[in-house]
């Protein structure tokens, strides 16, 4: 699920800008980011731990196969003792933090395997999906941006309209339409996860189109700004061709805000993956999360939340690193 054009994107850009502003030396920057990352992970773990305790229902019951189970009182008590659920909350919390530090995320109630193992199995699928979608969204957004900036006013309006509409499309609706069209009616593409890249097409398009709508709006604006900036005029005055202007100057500037948005985009892709993985029957974190939440699988939910938070932080840091590569101004100390 993604947020519509504007707010969320702006918020993400703002956050990127706030880290940008503190342009510092690489080492100090990295250590600050790492400390921030640890803090976010700790806070995410804490928040999740207490939030999940608010969920109605007995975790011991979830352990023994959900509320429909006919577990005996003895079995429930045994499960409580086994999972430390009979201890005071604060001890449970500290114990959990301690186990996280040692890399022990516990055992999933519903999957009957270690959370690390379960997430390990599912993470790959989601990552492939997210990365592919991000790449496709980038390409789409860039294509529309270049087209609408280069091809006159009508194209501008068309590009603008395309972006706004695609950003307003709910994932599950788009997925349904795509399946109906390309799978059911035309039979060109599989509706489900089949081996090879062909099975990735529809889910990736489903995730990429709304995202491209957001990215496109940002890219188009910065592309236009770049094309109207004095340094492009300078480049043209040097005899640079239109293609050269785009490739050597404008695109790089257009890419900057989109790079900054990657962290946010990743978050929205994970949200979207919950829906898309369910519809296209793909294995992955999103679908696992939905299931874990529905089955009150506390260790699995906590584990996934932490992994997603970690991934989000890593992607954010990576996008900042990329940002600094693309825009070396960020890496240098202000004079």
């Amino acid at each position, binding site marked *: 699920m993604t947020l519509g054009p504007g707010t969320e994107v702006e918020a993400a850009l703002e956050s990127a800008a706030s880290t940008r502003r503190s342009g510092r030396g690489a080492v100090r920057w990295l250590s600050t980011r790492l400390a921030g990352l640890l803090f976010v992970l700790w806070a995410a773990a804490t928040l999740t731990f207490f939030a999940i305790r608010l969920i109605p229902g007995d975790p011991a019951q979830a352990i023994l196969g959900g509320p429909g189970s006919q577990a005996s009182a003895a079995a429930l008590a045994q499960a409580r003792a086994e999972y430390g659920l009979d201890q005071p909350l604060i001890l449970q919390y500290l114990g959990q933090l301690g186990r996280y530090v040692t890399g022990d995320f516990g055992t999933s109630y519903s999957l009957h395997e270690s959370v690390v193992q379960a997430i390990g199995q599912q993470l790959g699928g989601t990552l492939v999906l997210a990365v592919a979608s991000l790449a496709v969204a980038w390409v789409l957004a860039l294509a529309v941006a270049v087209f609408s900036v280069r091809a006159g006013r009508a194209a501008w309006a068309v590009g603008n309209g395309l972006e706004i509409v695609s950003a307003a499309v709910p994932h599950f609706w788009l997925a349904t339409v795509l399946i109906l069209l390309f799978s059911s009616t035309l039979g060109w593409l599989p509706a489900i996860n089949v081996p090879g890249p062909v099975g990735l097409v529809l889910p990736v398009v489903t995730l990429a189109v709304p995202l491209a709508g957001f990215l496109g709006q940002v890219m188009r604006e910065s592309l236009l700004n770049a094309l109207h900036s004095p340094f492009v005029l300078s480049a043209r005055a040097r005899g640079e061709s239109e293609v050269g202007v785009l490739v050597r100057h404008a695109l790089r500037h257009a890419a900057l805000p989109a790079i900054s948005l990657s962290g946010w985009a990743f978050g929205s892709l994970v949200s*979207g993956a919950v*829906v898309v993985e369910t519809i296209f029957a793909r294995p992955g974190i999103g679908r696992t999360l939905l299931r874990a939440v529905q089955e009150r699988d506390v260790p699995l939910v906590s584990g996934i939340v932490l992994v*997603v938070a970690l991934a989000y932080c890593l992607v954010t840091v990576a996008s900042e690193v990329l940002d600094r590569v693309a825009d070396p101004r960020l890496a240098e100390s202000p004079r």
Partner: protein
Amino acid sequence: MRRAASAGPRVALVVCALVVLWLLACAVAPGLVAPGDPLAIHPLQGFEPPSLAHWFGTDESGRDVFTRVVHGAGPSLLIGVAATAIGIVLGVALGTLAGLGPRWLDFGTSRLLEVLFAFPGLLLALLFIVIYGPGITTSTVAVGLATAPGYARIVRSQMLAVRGAPYIEAEVVLGRPPLWRFRRSILPNVAGTLFVLVTLGVGQSIVWASSLSYLGLGAKPPTAEWGAMLSAGRTYIDSAWWLTFFPGLVIVASAAAATVLGRTIQGRVRGS
């Protein structure tokens, strides 16, 4: 973008304004736009394709889809507006703390926002719904909660930007006390942005809420709510496309129209 605001999109703007007006009419007086009863079932007239009698066809219980779409505008927009309002109010509270409070408060709030940002929105919403149970209220609150960090961030940055603006400094020089500046200048100036955020946010929240409905966590049946209609109609996509198409269309149209309007107002507010 002067170019964006000129010529071409003016037509689009008119269209969007009409869409929004129509939606508002539907929300305020659905009975005037579609006099029928959105809940009236006619089991034997189910799955009728669009016709003159039923512009958008009928659904599985023989209810008129057009009537339901019209009557659904109220709840759907209400979800959007309420969720956005919750998000904005929370966002303004957090953003004001961070933007105007002492530095340590800004630091703390900013870190909190960072953490909340690390939770993808749907995850926040899911957790909330699991704790408080599904339904129209919880999903509205959930969407509001999930969007609040974003709003808070924008409000904070706006507050900081306005607080540091030359005209606020000019007010200091004129001897205006802090509370006066906040009430008379900072808040009204941030409000402009907030209004834009609300317009943009409503469309987004509708899309959000519809996704929750798809996951079975939204409005309760048989409420005519777009997301729920879409989610129910999706099952019959192979035999009754109109059940999916029309609610989807109004969701996309309303979100897009709200966006266009919001952007236009944004352009005005920024005063370029």
